[in-house]
C-alpha cells in the first residue's frame, strides 16, 4: 500500500520534472542561442515595403567633378615610390650604385659590398644609377647625418641598415628609402621602405646557416609551445591553459632593438610564442631557423619583407589582448595547418634569411618590383619553393613557364623536347646520334652547337624534325646559354660522341615529365667527403649512389640555362671555362641548390663501358675529375648543395621475366 503511494508520488514527481524541462528549458535555450536569421521571420534588418522605391546613393548624371590635378610631391614626411623617387633614372630597370666603404668600416661592411658585386643590378656610375645604396649601420659615432656627395635630400637613395642604428629615424632621412631591421610599425612607409630581418651579429655572409627542420611533421610527444622569456631564454610550457605570460610591454615604451645576443636556442616545440617588443624581434628569425612556428603577439615592428612575403602562411600574428583565444586556437589547430606552417617557415628561412647575401638580394628584388614596367615576381614565386631569388623574372612572368609550379597551377610540362648537341674540337658530325634522337616521337627540334675549330659542314643528314646549327664561342659555359632558338621547355643536352638509342631517349623524357624540375641523366658522378684531404672530392666510378648527372646526356628544363647564365657570378663561370669538367659540376650545384633534391638516373644500355669509356677522344669529360673545382664551387656557394640518391628509375617491366613483346622499351633489355 505504502509502496504504491510512494510509487505514484515518484511518478508524479518525475512527470512534472519532465514537463518542466520540456516547457522551461526550450524557451530558455532559444534565448541563450543567438537565433539565426531565417527568411521571413528574421529578427534582423527589416524588409521594407517600399525598398524598391528607394533612391540610389549615386544619381546618374551626377557630375564626377573636374577639379584640377592635385599638387604632386611628398606630404607630411610620407613617401611613395611615385612621389619620392626620380623614376626617369630607372628606365633600364634597377641599377644600383653602392657608395664605397670609406674610413672605419668593419669586415662585415666590406663583406656586404663584396656580396653585392655578384649582383646583376650593380653599376659603377653614380649619376646614372636608379638607386644609390648607402650602408649605414655602423657609421662612426656622431655620423648620424649620412650626407654623401649625391645625397639630394635622399632622393633615389637606399639606406641599408642590417643592424639597428641609434639614429636617425626613418622620418629624418627625408626622401631616402630605408631598409632597416625590424622597423617600427608607425614610422614604416609601406611600399617605400623595406623591412629587414634582425640578423644576429655572426650571420653568415653567403651560403647560409641551414634550417633545423629535418622532418615534415612535429615529432610525437614534442611540446606544443615554447615561451620567450626575459634574458633571451626560452621555456617549454607544460600546461597551455595557464602559460604565465611575463610580458606586458607596449610599443610606446619600446627602446628599440639592441644588437642581438645569441640567446639560448629555442627548445624543440611546435610553436614559439614571441612578444611584440622590438627588443625581442631577433627571436623571430631564431624560431624560423629552428623550425618552430613563430606566434607573434601584436608586434611593434614590421615583419621582414612584408611587402612580398605572405606571413600568414608561415607564422601566426595575433592580438596580445586575445592571448587565451590564441592559445586555444593553437591547441585546436588542424595537423594539416601545422604541417603547412612548419614547412613554409622553414622554406622562407632558407630562401631569404639564411645569409646576409640573400637578405640584400631580396631587398633589391623588392625594390625592382616597384619600378613600373620592370619584370616583377608574382606572389606565387615569392611564397613557394624555390623562392624569388631562384626564379628569375627575366625568364618569364608566367609561373607556368618555370619548372617549379606545375602542381599549384594544375598544369603539365609539354610533351616535346629540343635536343641540343654540342660538337667539340674534332668537329665530327654525330650522325648516329642525330638519327637516334630524331627518331623519338617527342623530339621537336635538333640544335647543333658547333664549337669546333673546323668550319661548319654544309651538309647535314635529313631528319624528320628541323635541324638548326648554332655557332658557339668555344667556351664551355656556352652550352648553358639560353638560346632563343630553343622552343620547348625540355632540353636534351648531348655531346657528339654519346651513343644513345631512341628507346632510351623516349623513356628518359617520359621520366623527366614526372620530374620537370630535376635533371634526368644517363651518366652519373658522385661526390664524397675526402677525409684525407679535408675537402670534397668526386668520382666517375661505378657506385651505389650518385649526386650529379653529366650534361653529356641529360634532360632538364630550359629555365636552367637562364639561371646558369644570369644568376651565377662571373667568377664561377670563369672557373668553369678554365676547367671544362667543372661546368657539369657547376650545373649540378645550381640545380641542386634550387631543388634541394638529387638528380634522377635512368638506365643506359652500355653500362659495362663505364662513364669514362663513354666519352672517348678529347671531349672534356675524358679528363679526370678535378677536386679543386668542387671545392671552389662549394666555397662560392657557401655550402655543399649536392644531394645523393641510391635510386635509378627503370621501365616498369625492366628485365622482368616476361616476353620482350610485352615491353615498351625493348632496346633497354639488351645485356
Amino acid at each position, binding site marked *: 500500500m505504502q509502496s504504491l503511494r510512494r510509487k505514484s508520488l515518484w511518478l508524479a514527481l518525475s512527470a512534472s520534472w519532465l514537463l518542466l524541462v520540456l516547457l522551461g528549458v526550450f524557451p530558455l535555450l532559444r534565448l541563450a542561442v543567438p537565433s539565426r536569421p531565417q527568411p521571413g521571420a528574421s529578427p534582423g534588418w527589416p524588409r521594407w515595403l517600399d525598398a524598391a522605391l528607394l533612391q540610389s546613393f549615386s544619381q546618374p548624371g551626377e557630375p564626377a567633378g573636374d577639379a584640377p590635378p592635385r599638387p604632386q610631391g611628398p606630404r607630411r614626411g610620407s613617401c611613395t615610390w611615385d612621389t619620392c623617387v626620380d623614376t626617369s633614372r630607372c628606365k633600364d630597370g634597377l641599377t644600383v650604385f653602392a657608395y664605397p666603404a670609406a674610413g672605419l668600416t668593419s669586415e662585415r661592411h666590406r663583406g656586404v659590398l663584396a656580396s653585392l658585386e655578384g649582383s646583376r643590378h650593380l653599376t659603377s656610375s653614380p649619376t646614372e644609377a636608379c638607386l644609390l645604396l648607402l650602408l649605414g649601420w655602423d657609421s662612426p659615432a656622431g655620423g648620424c647625418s649620412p650626407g654623401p656627395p649625391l645625397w639630394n635630400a635622399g632622393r633615389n637613395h637606399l639606406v641599408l641598415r642590417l643592424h639597428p642604428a641609434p639614429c636617425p629615424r626613418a622620418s629624418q632621412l627625408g626622401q631616402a628609402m630605408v631598409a632597416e631591421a625590424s622597423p617600427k610599425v608607425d614610422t614604416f612607409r609601406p611600399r617605400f621602405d623595406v623591412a629587414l630581418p634582425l640578423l644576429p651579429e655572426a650571420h653568415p655572409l653567403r651560403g647560409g646557416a641551414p634550417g633545423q627542420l629535418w622532418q615534415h611533421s612535429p615529432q*610525437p610527444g614534442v611540446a606544443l609551445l615554447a615561451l620567450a622569456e626575459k634574458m633571451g631564454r626560452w621555456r617549454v610550457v607544460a600546461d597551455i591553459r595557464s602559460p604565465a605570460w611575463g610580458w606586458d610591454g607596449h610599443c610606446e615604451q619600446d627602446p628599440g632593438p639592441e644588437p642581438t645576443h645569441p640567446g639560448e636556442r629555442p627548445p624543440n616545440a611546435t610553436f614559439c610564442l614571441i612578444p611584440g617588443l622590438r627588443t625581442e624581434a631577433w627571436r623571430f628569425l631564431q624560431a624560423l631557423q629552428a623550425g618552430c612556428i613563430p606566434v607573434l603577439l601584436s608586434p611593434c615592428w614590421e615583419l621582414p619583407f612584408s611587402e612580398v612575403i605572405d606571413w600568414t602562411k608561415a607564422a601566426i600574428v595575433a592580438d596580445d589582448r586575445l592571448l587565451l583565444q590564441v592559445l586555444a586556437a593553437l591547441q585546436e589547430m588542424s595537423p594539416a595547418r601545422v604541417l603547412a606552417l612548419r614547412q613554409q617557415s622553414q622554406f622562407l628561412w632558407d630562401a631569404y634569411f639564411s645569409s646576409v647575401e640573400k637578405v640584400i638580394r631580396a631587398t633589391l628584388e623588392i625594390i625592382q618590383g616597384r619600378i613600373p614596367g620592370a619584370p616583377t615576381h608574382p606572389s606565387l614565386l615569392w611564397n613557394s619553393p624555390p623562392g624569388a631569388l631562384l626564379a628569375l623574372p627575366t625568364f618569364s612572368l608566367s609561373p607556368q613557364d618555370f619548372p617549379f609550379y606545375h602542381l599549384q597551377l594544375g598544369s603539365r610540362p609539354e610533351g616535346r623536347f629540343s635536343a641540343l648537341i654540342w660538337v667539340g674540337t674534332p668537329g665530327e658530325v654525330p650522325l648516329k646520334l642525330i638519327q637516334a634522337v630524331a627518331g623519338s616521337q617527342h623530339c621537336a627540334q635538333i640544335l647543333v652547337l658547333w664549337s669546333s675549330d673546323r668550319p661548319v659542314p654544309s651538309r647535314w643528314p635529313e631528319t624528320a624534325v628541323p635541324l638548326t646549327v648554332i655557332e658557339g664561342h668555344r667556351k664551355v659555359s656556352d652550352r648553358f646559354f639560353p638560346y632563343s632558338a630553343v622552343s620547348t621547355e625540355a632540353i636534351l643536352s648531348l655531346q657528339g660522341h654519346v651513343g644513345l638509342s631512341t628507346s632510351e631517349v623516349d623513356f628518359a623524357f617520359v621520366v623527366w615529365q614526372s620530374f620537370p624540375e630535376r635533371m634526368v641523366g644517363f651518366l652519373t658522378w658522385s661526390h664524397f667527403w675526402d677525409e684525407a684531404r679535408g675537402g670534397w672530392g668526386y668520382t666517375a666510378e661505378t657506385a651505389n649512389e650518385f649526386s650529379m648527372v653529366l650534361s653529356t646526356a641529360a634532360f632538364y628544363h630550359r629555365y636552367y640555362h637562364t639561371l646558369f647564365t644570369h644568376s651565377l657570378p662571373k667568377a664561377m663561370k670563369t672557373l668553369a671555362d678554365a676547367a671544362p669538367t667543372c661546368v657539369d659540376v657547376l650545373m649540378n650545384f645550381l640545380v641542386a641548390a634550387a631543388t634541394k633534391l638529387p638528380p634522377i638516373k635512368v638506365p643506359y644500355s652500355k653500362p659495362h663501358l663505364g662513364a669514362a669509356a663513354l666519352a672517348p677522344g678529347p671531349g672534356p669529360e675524358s679528363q679526370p675529375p678535378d677536386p679543386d673545382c668542387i671545392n671552389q664551387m662549394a666555397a662560392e656557394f657557401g655550402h655543399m648543395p649536392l644531394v645523393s640518391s641510391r635510386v635509378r628509375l627503370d621501365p616498369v617491366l625492366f628485365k622482368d621475366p616476361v616476353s620482350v613483346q610485352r615491353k615498351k622499351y625493348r632496346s633497354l633489355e639488351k645485356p
Partner: protein
Amino acid sequence: MCASVKYNIRGPALIPRMKTKHRIYYITLFSIVLLGLIATGMFQFWPHSIESSNDWSVEKRSVRDVPVVRLPADSPIPERGDLSCRMHTCFDVYRCGFNPKNKIKVYIYSLKKYVDDLGVPVSSTISREYNELLTAISDSDYYTDDISRACLFVPSIDVLNQNTLRIKETAQALAQLSRWDRGTNHLLFNMLPGGPPDYNTALDVPRDRALLAGGGFSTWTYRQGYDVSIPVYSPLSAEVALPEKGPGPRRYFLLSSQMAVHPEYREELDALQAKHGESVLVLDKCTNLSEGILSVRKRCHKHQVFDFPQVLQEATFCVVLRGARLGQAVLSDVLQAGCVPVVIADSYILPFSEVLDWKRASVVVPEEKMSDMYSILQSIPQRQIEEMQRQARWFWEAYFQSIKAIALATLQIINDRIYPYAAISYEEWNDPPAVKWGSVSNPLFLPLIPPQSQGFTAIVLTYDRVESLFRVITEVSKVPSLSKLLVVWNNQNKNPPEDSLWPKIRVPLKVVRTAENKLSNRFFPYDEIETEAVLAIDDDIIMLTSDELQFGYEVWREFPDRLVGYPGRLHLWDHEMNKWKYESEWTNEVSMVLTGAAFYHKYFNYLYTYKMPGDIKNWVDAHMNCEDIAMNFLVANATGKAVIKVTPRKKFKCPECTAIDGLSLDQTHMVERSECINKFASVFGTMPLKVVEHRADPVLYKDDFPEKLKSFPNIGSL
C-alpha cells in the same frame, strides 16, 4: 604489449528507501516543482512576451514610418577621425572575445530618421544600396541582434554618399548612438567621400575612432590595417548583364570611356589616339542624342555612338582615370567587361588592396607617365594580358558585382584581422575558381630527405593467421631501419597470443586491439607511430627480402610525399563500357601500389581516417575491400603525384594471383576492384591517379658489377 582493462562498475541502488520523516520533504519538493511548472507555463503561453521586441520586423513597414529623432543643435560632435588609429590602439578586441567559431558578431542599429531642431531632415533616410548592404549583413552569419554580444556595430545612418548628408548633424547623430563610445568598434560605409571644391579622399563626417570602409582612399587618408578600402559600386552591375567574354585580343587595344575627364588629361588621351590611330578609342559624352535616350548608357567618339558599358568588352585595356574623386565606379564596369583596368590615380588605394593582388588584374600608371602608357602596356606579354583579363572578370564576380559581395568581403577582412589564425588565404582571395579547382597544394611540399636514423614503423594488420604473422614479424625485424612493429589485432572474438609466444625481436613490438573488424583500422593514426615513415604490410607477405624492404625505405626517404610500394597496379579507361577498369596484368605502366606492402608518410593515416571524402571509408568497411585503392586515390589527390613502385615484379600472395577456384573468383575480384575505382572517381569528382612508366631500382640493379659490392644485392629474387 598492452593489457586490456575491463570496466565493471555497478552503480548504487537507484532509489533509497523512503522514510516517513522524509515525506514532508518530498511533498515540499513536489510543490516547488508544481509551482515552477505553472510559472513556466505562464511564461510560455503569455502572448509572445519574449519575442515581442522583434515582432515589428516580421510585419512589413515603410521606410517613411521609422521613428523620428530630433537632434538638439548643441548635441555633442565626435572628434575628427584619428589618423594614428590601428587595431591595437583604437579597436576594443575584448568585445570579440566570446564570439564562437572565430567569427565576429555584427550588430545593426535600427533605422531612425534624424531631424534638426527645426525639423529639417539631416539626410535622406536610407539609399537603396545601403538598405541592400544592411540586408546582406543581416542575412549573413556575422549578424547578431544581441547588442551586448556584438563585436562590431554598424549604424543605419547612411553615409555612402557624402553629398546627400549634412556633415555636422550626421556626426551628432552618430554620437548619440547607444554604444557609440567614441566610435569604438563602429564601422561606417562610404563610397563617395568629399565634396567640392577640394574633394577629400575620406568621409568628412567627424567619426572619432570609427572604422571606415571607404571608396576613394588615398595613401594620405587610409589607415593601413584599420580602414578598409572598398569599391565604388556601379549601379550598372545590376542593370546590365555582360556575358563573360573569353580572353584574347580585342578590337581596341586601349579605350577611355569616362565622361568627366579633366581637360589636361583629355588632351593627353587625344594625343595618344592621334599617335596610335585605330587601336586607341577615346570616348566622351554624347552631345547630340535625341530625347528619351539614357545618356549614361551611351558614349560618343566624334559622331559615332557606342553602347555603354558594352563597348568596354571591345577593348583589351581600359583607362580608369581619377576625376575629382580617386575612386571611380567605372572600375567596376571595366572589370565586369573583362577589360584590364589601367589605373591612373596617384596615391589611390585600390579596393580591398589588403587582400587582393591587383598586380594580377590591373596596370597602375603614374599620372605623369600617362604619355608613356601605350608603350608600357605594349611591353606586357600576350599571355599575361589574357591572365589579367580573366583575373579582372573574376574580381568583379567575387567582390564588385553586388553590394552584398562588397559588404561581406569588408567584414571578412576585419574578421581575419581579429582571428588571423583562421584567416582566408591569399589563394582563396585571389585565385579564380578554375585555378583553385585544378591546383594541388601538396601537404608535404618542402623538399627534404628525412634522416635515415629515424627508421620506420611497420604496421601489420592481422585477424587470426598467427603462424604467418609470426613469420612476417621475424622477416621484417631483420630490416636494419625498422624502429618499431605494431600489430593491429582485428579479431574481437579471439585474444592475441600470450606475450611469451611472440617472436623475440630487437625492436619494440606493440599489439593494438581494435573495437571492430574494419579494414580502416590499418590506416588509423595510432599514437604508437613515432616515425614519419610507416610500412603497411599484410600478415602473409613473407616473400619480401630484407634488402627489398630496406631499399623501399630508402626510396621513401627520397620521395617522402608518395606511396612507395611493391606490387603495382593500373587503372584503364574501358572504351566499350565507358568506365574505369582495374588492371593487374604485366603492363608497362603503373598508377597504384597495393598497400599489402607499402611505405608512406604517417600524415596520410590522419587524412585517411579524418579527411576521406564522401562515404568512401564506410564503403570500404562495408565491402571489406579496396582500402588500398582508396589510399592510392587519397594520396594522389592530396599530392598530385604518382606512386613509386619499387623493385621487379614478384609472385605475390594476393587475391587476384591465388585464384583458388580458378578464373571465377579471380574475375569477381577484378569486377569488384573496378567498381571501387569507378565509385571513388565519382566521389572525388575527378580521377586523381597518375600513370607513370617507371619503377625504382637500386642504382646498380642488374648492372655488370660484382654483387657483393652492391648495397642491395638481394633484390628481385623469386
